[in-house]
């Protein structure tokens, strides 16, 4: 095939194209993925029964604040990772800030408490809390991750591992937001360690999927 012919073909009957559409697609994927994660939580484990009491609503707010700050820092970076040419002009470090902040607060809380209380603070309400947290967040994050990958395939990510990892973090944040409603463990160290670990695992899965599913 002659390249000049290809250029004629590509520019024939050219349609206008705007760059705003992709951002909307990404938001749509986050909203539907988040709604699906929430629905999945209601359909399976369900919200914790004593959610309405004031003390627990405060803890719910803390958990949601962490999840939403992960989503809030991740989403703009996710959009940038699908735009060629911004790779070197982007500071990717803010993606870690919510995790650093949570770990710093957790360390402060531990240092302010007696060492005998540490075990309970780190492992949560009962012996299976930590495993339940990991499994539930990753389970709830699965649909958001699939929705995000579907959306990202319409973009043009040039660093597929990085893009997949950020998608995993945002999906993990959405899964954590859904899990916050059924989480029985009300301590900052528990949130920092187990919510953080679950989201990091989602990032690892995203980084593995990226090079396979996001090629274009």
């Amino acid at each position, binding site marked *: *095939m002659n390249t000049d012919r*290809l*250029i004629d073909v*590509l520019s024939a*009957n*050219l*349609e206008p194209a705007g760059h705003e559409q992709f951002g909307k697609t990404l938001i749509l994927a986050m909203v539907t993925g988040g709604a699906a994660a929430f629905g999945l939580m209601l359909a399976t484990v369900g919200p914790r029964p004593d959610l309405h009491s004031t003390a627990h609503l405060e803890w719910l707010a803390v958990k949601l604040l962490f999840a939403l700050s992960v989503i809030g820092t991740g989403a703009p970076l996710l959009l940038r990772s699908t*735009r060629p*040419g911004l790779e070197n002009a982007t500071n990717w470090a803010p993606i870690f800030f919510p995790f650093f902040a949570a770990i710093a607060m957790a360390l402060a809380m531990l240092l302010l408490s007696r060492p005998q209380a540490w075990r309970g603070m780190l492992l949560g309400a009962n012996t299976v809390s930590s495993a339940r947290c990991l499994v539930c967040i990753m389970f709830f994050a699965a649909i958001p991750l699939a929705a995000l990958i579907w959306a990202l395939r319409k973009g*043009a990510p040039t660093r597929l591992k990085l893009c997949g990892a950020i998608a995993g973090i945002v999906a993990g944040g959405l899964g954590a937001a859904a899990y916050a409603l059924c989480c029985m463990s009300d301590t900052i160290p528990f949130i920092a360690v187990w919510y953080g670990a679950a989201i990091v695992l989602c990032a690892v899965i995203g980084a593995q999927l990226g090079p396979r599913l996001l090629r274009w």
Partner: protein
Amino acid sequence: MEELAHSHERELRTLMTAGLDGDAGAYHALLERLTGHLRAYYRRRFALIGHGPTEAEDLLQEALIAIHTHRNTYDPSQPFTPWIHAIARYKFLDYLRKTKSSFKDMPIESAQELTARSDMAAVESGLDLQRLMSRISSKARAAIQCVKLEGLSVSEAAARCGMSESAIKVAVHRGLKALALRISEGRAT
């Protein structure tokens, strides 16, 4: 050199912005200019890994289709040269991955290196458009045939194919993406 890069950037960006607004003439001119730069870019890199100009032309065509189908990822408030360079480089690295070529010492390059050279000496690529077209869905083939090869308007094509106008637009877009995929698959096997 710096001066030249700036003038390239200005001209290409103006053409791209007009193209995104639907100006086919500006877009055609843009693709012609980019073809020269991309050809020089790929030939230099292919020479380094011992591949010839025909493979470079194949990848150039794949890159042009990718630029076209992903043109909505360019934000006009951002510089244009880094955008086009990132796509050119991504397509080259993707080619290396697919063909399993080893090229460990890919030199660090600046985005301006892309527009520094231009090569207008075309060679026929090994790809046959009609043969590639036979391997995409019949809907997409009909839409591309009408809109892109025969130059019918979208509404004329819609009437002929018995599809809605938006279905025609979607079929053309998907068809071009599928064509690019067929090109890269054809190379991997």
